[in-house]
């Protein structure tokens, strides 16, 4: 299983759960990459008959296994950015009682959760489960640009090029962690990048 135990952290950092099948007429499952495994783990024919799966493949081939579950509706897209308009459209049509399941990377879960909340889905109807990459979606506090799939600390902002350190401070509204210039008090003194959890 592609699971990871995140170390304890500060109170703004999201805590991810474990998906469980819930009662309900309508179920929307959004997953990326290894997140597919979390859906497969709870899938039953009865549940799938009432489920819409939106899968963001990110180059993986889990889509075939999800399609084989025979969900009521299935969509596969290459990236979150390519899928987000469709996700918004689906939330627009959501009825009271919709159960939302998010699985995969923090970046995709965070962004899909933001769409769900903005559409008025109560947080109690949203479940999450982290699977796969532990990379983070980071906002540069200086230029405000978002860098996706950050795996190291520090990292280079994809927009302004500053070397940023990775904070655990997280904004649900931005669906991103905060990156802050690491050498602000000693220009040019940038530590060797390491994995975020190393």
């Amino acid at each position, binding site marked *: 299983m592609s699971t990871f135990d995140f170390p304890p952290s*500060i*109170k*703004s*950092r999201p805590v991810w759960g474990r998906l469980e099948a819930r009662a309900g007429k309508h179920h929307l499952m959004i997953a990326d990459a290894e997140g597919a495994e979390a859906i497969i783990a709870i899938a039953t024919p009865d549940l799938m008959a009432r489920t819409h799966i939106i899968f963001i493949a990110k180059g993986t081939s889990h889509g075939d296994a999800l399609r084989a579950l025979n969900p009521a509706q299935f969509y596969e897209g290459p990236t979150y950015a390519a899928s987000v308009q469709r996700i918004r459209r689906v939330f627009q049509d959501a009825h009271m009682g919709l159960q939302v399941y998010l699985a995969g990377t923090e970046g995709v879960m965070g962004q899909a959760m933001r769409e769900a909340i903005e559409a008025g889905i109560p947080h109690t109807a949203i479940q999450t489960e982290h699977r796969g990459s532990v990379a983070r979606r980071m*906002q540069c*506090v*200086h230029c*405000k640009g978002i860098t996706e799939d950050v795996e190291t600390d520090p990292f280079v902002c994809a927009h302004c090029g*500053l070397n940023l350190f990775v*904070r*655990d*401070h997280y*904004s*649900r*509204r*931005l669906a991103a962690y*905060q990156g*802050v*210039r690491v050498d*602000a*008090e*000693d*220009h040019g003194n940038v530590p060797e990048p390491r994995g975020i959890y190393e």
Partner: protein
Amino acid sequence: MTIQFNDETFRDDYSFYNSEWAINRFPFPFDKDSYMYAVNMEQHRGGPDGSVYEKRFDVDEHYVSEMRDRAMVLADDPLRCQSLPHMTLAGWDLLELIMVSKSEDYPDLFELHRDGDQWRWINKPLGIDDSFTFLDETTLPYGPMEYITRQAQGDYCILDQRDDNLWMDAGMVTTQADWSLDFDIGMNFFEWHAPVPLAHEKGIFVRALKFLLNIQQGAPARRLNWTMTVNPLLDTSPENYHKWGIQKTTLTPENIGAKQHLRVELQTFFRLPRSNALVFPIRCYLCSFQDLMTVPKWGRRLHRVIRDLPDELATYKGFIDNRPMMLDYLSAFDDGLPTSLGVWPEVDTEPPLQK
């Protein structure tokens, strides 16, 4: 008294200064010779004549220059002022609170004339004379929160109250101690305080929240917070940290007295009548070490507090690297004599420095 407004800057050449009047009313935050987090909340119902606690919204010699600095920050970065869509009514509440308070507390500086919803606001120091319709946004040049907080010293956070929590849903934040409104907007009380060390474990935030949720109209509260800033820089924002962070390394034993500033926040809390939101003004006062040392009691005490502060707090407040140099400077003003309890300068009763 009539205030003489300083013509000064909080950037570039840093011509900011405190008059002797301003030094003696500086809100020195340490009531004893040591410091640890506490809820330290008290009623905000006036204070000694001339003190920063006397009026609901203190206006001092820095007013005009601070408002000029705020306008410059906003021109560079409009995201410093944001209000989520459901917070407009609270913005009107705040506009009313500030206009009523200032016109009553400083009638020589501010006037408010109300005829039903037709209001006229005169701000003499800033040369403003505007007529508008209360609760009609189209009659003001900015939204109500932005309009009035471009004319009021200190940062302003407006906190929505729901689900037994407070939510940072609007704010004007240009003089902050290194936190980002743009990042934190929409967060609840525990989330926006998440990066603060030690205080969660001590239960500070649980107790503070309980207190704040119960603040009633007409019964505002206040507390002090503090940090350290090199140069009298109001805009110590994370947004600009990549530019100002390096200034911390410019301290030398020769310039530390003039460059190192104690930064104190007078935080107040008012319940707003229509929205039931809580407004949280955070007013920043700066004072250089050398000016603080003119008060013998503060000289003795500041040395002891900084010397004994836990490393976590010195790190969080961003001066752990400069602490040894600060202590070298401050120790010359500590002769070991006892200090009287309380924050007041007591210049008439405390002995002068004995070394």
